[in-house]
């Protein structure tokens, strides 16, 4: 008897949750790779009609806004966006979000190194282009690896359990020997 309300609850979740979600859209990128600071052509489809969506360029370490784009009555858009120069070379995902933050569509893109003359053509001086290049070095990166209280607790608990368990097993082994 107690199981019935639980089962009904989870069945309701299965059917109700999709009703409240946005319809999944799709985007296509004209190029799979774009140089730093270059232009990206994006076409969207099956998106909320006569509305506006947010474009975001998301990488492993940084997220960059690409602006807001209006959609047509058919739920499409066709736009060109200039990638921010701060988006360093690497693998990214272009994400389309609704006004309430729900993700509607995504597509992978790779940002590649820009050649110095391309940087100049985009309005950046050669000096700044050279300054943006990374020189090979054997040095280690300085990273902020601050731990939360919960992480410290988990680490100390694991270490304590292993140490305590080890000592207990060795003590009991000595006792039975």
């Amino acid at each position, binding site marked *: 008897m107690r199981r019935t309300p639980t089962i009904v609850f989870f069945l309701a979740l299965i059917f109700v949750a999709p009703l409240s979600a946005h319809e999944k859209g799709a985007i296509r990128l004209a190029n799979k790779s774009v140089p730093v600071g270059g232009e990206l052509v994006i076409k969207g489809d099956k998106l909320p009609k006569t509305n506006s969506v947010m474009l975001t360029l998301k990488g492993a370490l940084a997220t960059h806004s690409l602006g807001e784009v209006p959609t047509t009555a058919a739920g499409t858009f066709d736009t060109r966006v200039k990638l921010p120069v701060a988006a360093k070379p*690497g*693998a990214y995902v272009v994400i389309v979000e609704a006004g309430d933050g729900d993700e509607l569509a995504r597509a992978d893109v790779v940002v590649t190194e820009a050649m110095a003359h391309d940087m100049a053509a985009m309005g950046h001086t050669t000096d700044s282009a050279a300054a943006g290049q990374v020189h*090979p070095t*054997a040095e*280690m990166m300085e*990273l902020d690896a601050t731990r939360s209280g919960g992480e410290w607790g988990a*680490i100390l608990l694991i270490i304590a359990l292993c140490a305590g368990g080890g000592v207990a097993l060795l003590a009991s*082994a000595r006792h039975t020997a």
Partner: protein
Amino acid sequence: MHTHDSHESPSGMPTTEPGDSPRVTAADGVRSRFAVGALEYRIPPIANKLPYMLGGLTFIGLTVLVLTGILLDQYYNPNPVAAHDSIVYIMTRMPLGAWLRGVHYWGAAAVLVTSLLHLIYVFWRRSYHRPREVTWLAGVALNVVIFALVFTGSVLRADQEGVEALAHAVAGAGLTGPLGAPLTPGFTPSTSLLARLHNAHVSLLPLALFGLVALHFFLIRNLGIHASEPATVPFTRHLRRLTGYGLLLTSLLGVLAVALPPGIGFAGIEGVEVTKPFWPFLWIYAVENTMGLWGMILAPLVLFGFLFAVPLLDRRVGDRTPSWLRIVGVILLVLYVGGIIYGALAPQMQHIM
């Protein structure tokens, strides 16, 4: 062979006398269902001393590496343009990422040390002798696979040291002609060399590793260890002590991961040599400094070739190892350790640029 006393059924469950009420504990249930009784075969008491547990500690270290590796691999991206960033993400944003990476790093160091000590101890006691030659060969092969895992793991960092390590390997592969073809970027045009090495690190090499471990354990179980004492204590006692030492080792790795966390270099740039290799390979670097690129091929060939040949080189009947064999072993060990120290202290040199 486990013998059953009169109060146990063949399954290990306690039987009852007429009039008794059965008392079956949870431990009895686990014991019978997991055939724990099969682990109570007898072994010599000397096996419970720490030097005889070095191989088991190596296995526990490998288990820690597998567990931490599985967690880390959920966040790692083997795409060459994203690999380094994913490691930085692991170190700065993955929950417990920096610590798990530290445990993985120090676990690899621990496995290298315990496997080396285990090999030295087995060699010195002449435990490779008949009938344990295949046990020895499986153990040496395990060491080769462990080195391959350490190499592929260092390349996956995709920092300057990792990029140069990969360049060295590709240059070395070029010297060996068709044998080195799989280690060249153009071998499979559909994917990158880094992605293939990632596959080797998480799939191919662990499969080889655990296949060899299974063979190694099977032979140890059935041929017994090299000891003059009779087998009088249950193997479960050895397992209990080994697990205790293993847990202490794991806690030490956790402490090292906090106190001495491994760093990462900047994203690697191809076409330059500004770093030295990861410390387990400094002995090869030392030979390269004197012999050039061919040192990278010859040094491992000489060392592992000697180790594989040991059972063939010592076929003497009796208990004593030939003196010359021990002398050669000691010389190679001194050169190995000395090469690492020299490589760490010597100035950085270019070998392929």
